[in-house]
């Protein structure tokens, strides 16, 4: 596997790569462009407050990882550093692909949709293609991915005309339109009502299985983590407190007793029972 440094960080030597992972092979075949992630000795301080304390983490290409923990445990900070939104105080992040050459394309879905209210739904999705893409090509790509998230008929609407769940689906479409190798999800369903959240979980699971990208989901919802992820990581005070494989086939049914048991185990770990 060819490891390419995150633009901000230097690549790390192979022999440094001796840390244990719960990285069992992903349950779903990874796409050739899916990105692997390698994190070494990551630290982040905000003044006196140390949020991340020497974090090591390996995520194989195509894996769906959920990061959970109490608020303030550093899970959002970890994701922001992975995406280059914040700089680490120390440590390194590297992305790699199986196919080689270019660094995998990484996209993020935020908790809020962050759509541009003055662009139509289709033009918002085309933002995800980046610069220098012809308008007509952008529209075609946007229409395609919009039908993927079942919003094809809303292409010409303004974001203000959509419901909260629909806006978040547009945000997901914007992230997916460039066929990312890595998709970061920062509590993307946190602001949605319970029923919308369940259908969004199904959508996320379906697109992940179809497109085979690597997904890193930060969430405070343990049941969501267990339903979507191959692997759940519990962060506590800036360290990995638990790294748990979820070896169940997708799609997963709500109310599956084995998953409920895992959920209980994770909750106990988070709450310290």
């Amino acid at each position, binding site marked *: 596997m060819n490891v390419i440094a995150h633009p901000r960080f230097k690549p790390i030597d192979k022999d440094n790569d001796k840390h244990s992972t719960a990285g069992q092979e992903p349950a779903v075949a990874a796409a050739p462009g899916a990105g692997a992630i390698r994190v070494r000795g990551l630290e982040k301080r905000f003044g006196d407050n140390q949020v991340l304390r020497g974090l090591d983490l390996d995520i194989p290409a195509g894996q769906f990882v959920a990061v959970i923990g109490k608020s303030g445990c550093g899970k959002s900070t970890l994701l922001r550093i992975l*995406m*280059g*939104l914040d700089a680490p105080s120390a440590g390194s992040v590297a992305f790699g692909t199986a196919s080689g050459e270019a660094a995998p394309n990484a*996209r*993020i879905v*935020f908790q*809020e949709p*962050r759509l*541009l*209210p*003055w*662009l139509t739904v289709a033009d918002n999705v085309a*933002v*995800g293609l*980046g*610069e220098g893409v012809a308008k007509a090509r952008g529209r075609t790509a946007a229409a395609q991915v919009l039908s993927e998230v079942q919003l094809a008929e809303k292409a010409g609407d*303004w*974001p*203000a005309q959509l419901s909260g769940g629909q806006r978040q689906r547009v945000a997901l479409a*914007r992230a997916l339109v460039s066929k990312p190798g890595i998709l970061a999800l920062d509590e993307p369903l946190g602001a949605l009502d319970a029923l919308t959240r369940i259908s969004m979980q199904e959508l996320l699971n379906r697109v992940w299985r179809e497109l085979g990208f690597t997904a890193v989901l930060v969430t405070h919802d343990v049941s969501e983590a267990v339903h979507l992820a191959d692997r759940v990581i519990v962060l506590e005070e800036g360290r990995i407190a638990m790294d748990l494989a979820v070896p169940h086939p997708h799609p997963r049914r709500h109310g599956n007793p084995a998953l409920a048991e895992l959920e209980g185990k994770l909750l106990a770990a988070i709450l310290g029972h």
Partner: protein
Amino acid sequence: MAAVDTHFVEVRAVRADEGQRAGRSRQVLEGWLPYLVPVAIIALWQLGSSAGWISSRVMPSPVDVVLAFWQTTTSGQLPKDIAVSAGRAFAGLFVGGSIGFLLGIANGVSRLSEKLTDTTLQMMRTVPHLALIPLVILWFGIGEESKLFLTSLGVLFPVYLNTYHGVRNVDRDLIEMGRVYGMGNWTLFRKVIFPGALPSIFVGLRYALGIMWLTLIVSESIAASSGIGHMANNAREFMMTDVVVLSLVIYALLGKVADVAARAMERSALRWNPTYQQR
């Protein structure tokens, strides 16, 4: 327990066609309501003039004003003066508005530019620009430059302030999104910052339109050889109250036209915003 017969009393009931008719007639009424007060005032005014309660030396009757409008229009004086005044107004708006807009954008996006010029602009803003009239006459005389200078100066500040605030208040989350989705500076400005600041820029523009007419009226009355202000001032010397009132009416109409045009632009540029969508 024995069943009890429930007795119902109708507390509200509307037949579908009745409800619709009531709604429609209310709409028609609301459409005419804004014109009720002005029409009543003009009717009373005409009544007062015709009955001789108001001297025509103090206030001409509405009919006299309409006649003055007809005479000055047929003589070609009014169209010429309107063209001159409107030309000055919009030249000033263009020059002052452009400078204010560019400074607002620059100071909104660049910390350096803001540090360099904002304090100076805020100090200049507190000086009433009309207080510069004596100085401006000394500099430029009563030519076109003095009017252009004053209107430009007047419209500069509202445009500057609102553009600056609009840019500063663009949602930081959207800017972060733009960056992480790979937008360069120019794309970020074009797709995120400028449209985000636009509602505020329009507030500045509409405010500037008010100041534009005000400045023009004052400077044309004091120092001009053409334009509506000059026409009014000239009429004063000959005690032609009808022409004086006519010029006030013209100012009011020009102001209204400019505001309606600005609103139309606002509605079309901000049609994404639910506040500006027509119901």
